[in-house]
């Protein structure tokens, strides 16, 4: 019987073997997303986010052997990042309350109602639109590597499929297939975000 090895576990194995290309893939695929993850939780303190993410990635590399693939690699990294953020905030004894992203809030339902309404009416509630935009971007970050980028290139930047394929080093047909899977993944993931269950979903492979 063949074992299907998850892409995340393949990447981890390659990293542990010391493959230089694996590091490139790892850093390019996870650093920007983790940075945005930390930034949001540090009240957009860029210096703090840089420090935290650097520490998180180094910690991850140190304990990489413990990654078992039960959660996605990004979820695993976010867990490590949360600990770093928590420790950081305790150390600096910040008086300000650490920012709690909407997707982490148990009171998301009321806000979601407003978001949905503002979307139907059009761009009038500027603050809510911005929060919606952020939720969309958070959802993209939580998709598997490559999915978020592909959707962003396609819809936010309106790049042609041919160029998306070149960026992903895929054939146009493979790029279309990836976009289809990415849309499906986004659809499900965003539904979870607006239902306030992002934290629970991060445990899924």
């Amino acid at each position: 019987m063949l074992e299907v090895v998850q892409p995340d576990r393949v990447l981890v194995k390659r990293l542990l073997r010391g493959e230089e290309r694996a590091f490139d893939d790892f850093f390019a695929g996870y650093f920007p997303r983790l940075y945005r993850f930390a930034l949001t939780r540090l009240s957009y303190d860029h210096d703090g986010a840089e420090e935290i993410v650097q520490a998180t990635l180094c910690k991850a590399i140190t304990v990489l052997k413990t990654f078992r693939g039960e959660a996605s690699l990004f979820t695993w990294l976010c867990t490590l990042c949360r600990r770093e953020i928590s420790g950081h905030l305790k150390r600096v004894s910040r008086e300000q309350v650490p920012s709690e992203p909407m997707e982490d809030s148990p009171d998301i339902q009321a806000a979601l109602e407003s978001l949905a309404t503002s979307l139907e009416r059009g761009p009038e509630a500027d603050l809510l639109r911005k929060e919606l935009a952020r939720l969309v971007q958070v959802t993209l970050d939580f998709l598997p590597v490559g999915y978020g980028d592909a959707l962003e290139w396609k819809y936010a930047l309106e790049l042609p499929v041919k160029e998306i394929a070149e960026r992903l080093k895929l054939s146009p047909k493979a790029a279309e297939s990836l976009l289809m899977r990415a849309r499906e993944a986004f659809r499900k993931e965003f539904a979870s975000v607006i239902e306030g269950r992002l934290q629970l979903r991060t445990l899924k492979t």
Partner: protein
Amino acid sequence: MTDRDIPQNDTMNRRAPNGDEIARLLRAAGPRPGVPAERTDRVRHAVHAHWRRAARGRKLARWFAWTAAPLAAAAAWVLLVGPDLSRWNPVAPSLTAPGATLERTEGSVSWGDREPPVIGGGLRAGTILETGTDGRVAVRLRAGASVRVDIGTSLRLVSAETLLLNRGGVYVDTEGPSEAGASVTIRTPLGLVRDVGTQFQVRATAGAVLVSVREGIARFERNGSAHEAPSGIQISVQQDGSVTRQPVPSSGPEWDWVLSVAPDFELEGSLLGEYLDWVGRETGLRVEYGAPSISSDAMIVVLHGSIEGLRPDETLGAVLSTCSLSHRIRDDSLIVERVVPEAAP
């Protein structure tokens, strides 16, 4: 959560967006903010260096496991003064391989009837060295211990683990990888000094042996009795066998000469933490970090350049300034701090 969890007759806020809605959402949201290139480069550099070291560490761990050669660390300085040992019968040298490697010399040093060795050259068992009024020597025993010889010293390399100290002072530091069970023995006119995982100094004065311990324990043995000196203690053994103890600081004038003949540290490619560990070990100071982030940086910042020829304590200002760090010494602590305070959020 699946689609079945979302009632189909709900409004959009409970229904997953369809393809067109996804497009609308993504267009409305716009591209995700990128990370400034400078920050990306900095983090990438640091994380990559850490990853390379981790990979090397795994390879080294496998090598050590294969060879069954565990890491051990100790240092001792033994000061020995006493009668002429030339009438002793030293342990017959039985080694054909070099018992030690010459790491550094300063001033006038004679090597008995042998040709002066070159730096990096081997020293065979039986080698006698005598340092002049300005001479000092650093050697590395085959078992891994660092031995430094002070001015006015007469010393014989008996084996890779045993030294015969006729007069003068010897500092021993068994830091770093060493063979399992290896220890260093200093034979003196009044008895043996053995290291038990230490940094210690042995000095022979007229009719007495002084054993000063900076870290760990050194044991002095004579006529079937043994006296142990823990860190921060100096024991003085007199000709009549009496032993006295007194405190000795781990840093300061007592140990200053050790720094002047310290083997060079390979700075290029080393981690900041490794460098600070080396300075701490050489100076006897306890390294403390002024902020937790500095401690984190110490594990990932890679240093470049050379500090060849400089004493460990002379390198701090130059090296730390390249990392926007400074240092100060308070009691027995070397405190490392940032030059620019971290920006408040």
